């Protein structure tokens, strides 16, 4: 693959920056959803553990505002 092919005429900066932005957005989208899910799972684990031990269930540290 030559430098000219990557340069894409004079449009390389535009094309590559679009693809880089798309990659960042996809990673962000997946990571935000995954983190939210893991956070809730950990809170559920803590509650289940507390119930098994007969302790009062801890309140979730996660749902401030219940944002999307």
């Amino acid at each position, binding site marked *: 693959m030559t430098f000219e092919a990557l340069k894409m005429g004079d449009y390389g900066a535009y094309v590559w*920056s679009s693809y880089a932005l798309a990659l960042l957005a996809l990673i962000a989208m*997946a990571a935000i959803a995954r983190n939210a*899910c893991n956070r809730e799972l950990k809170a*559920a684990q803590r509650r289940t553990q507390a119930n098994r031990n007969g302790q009062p269930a801890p309140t979730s540290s996660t749902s401030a505002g*219940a944002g999307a």
Partner: protein
Amino acid sequence: MNWIWFHKLASPPSAYVFATRLRPWLFWVSVVMMLWAAYQGLFVVPLDYQQKDAFRIIYVHVPVASLSLLVYSMMAIAAAIGLIWRMKLAHAVAAACAMPGAILTTLALATGSIWGKPMWGAWWAWDARLTSELILLFLYLGYMALRASFDDIGRADRASAILAIVGIVNVPIVKYSVVWWNSLHQGQTLSLFGKSEIDPSMATPLVVMIFAFLLFFGAVLCDGLRAEILRRERNASWLSELKV
């Protein structure tokens, strides 16, 4: 017709298990499809005779712009189902759509702006398509802000559902803005069911990329939905039986 499977899917525990199982399939299939389509779009398809290499931005811009509308429509329909039939899972689906929808809309505006600079000579124009897409972003942000302003999930669901339903009026405006007004933005060149004005060698990777983004969104939605279900069902007995 037996609808038991559908009723079963509408229960939070079943939906949670279904989303957990479906997510890795959607994710990995979308990644493979995206890599193939990106390679084709960047290195294999021929140059556009007018836009030269700049047209390759189409392979990220068109899928995200299409999805920004589709996700909003899905969010509004789910919100309406939740509001009318008081189905909690529908509100959870609507809530889970908002974040990926906002990111996709931002990406559509950003990649459109990057494409606009070499083609129109400007990063931004107050054109009907661009402005209505910007309003779509504000609707997503407004929906998320409204949800976050309530402590009570039930009230957040109802208030945000009304906003989502009212905002659906913007979706046909975005879609048909290039037809209804004299727009700087080019008209539709790809049609899944009608005649496309784009060459098949360029269209095939584009269609694959659109479906790849759709599947990727599906994977993100699965995680978002699981988080929403866990948040809403925190006192439910089925959660303690779940191997979390």
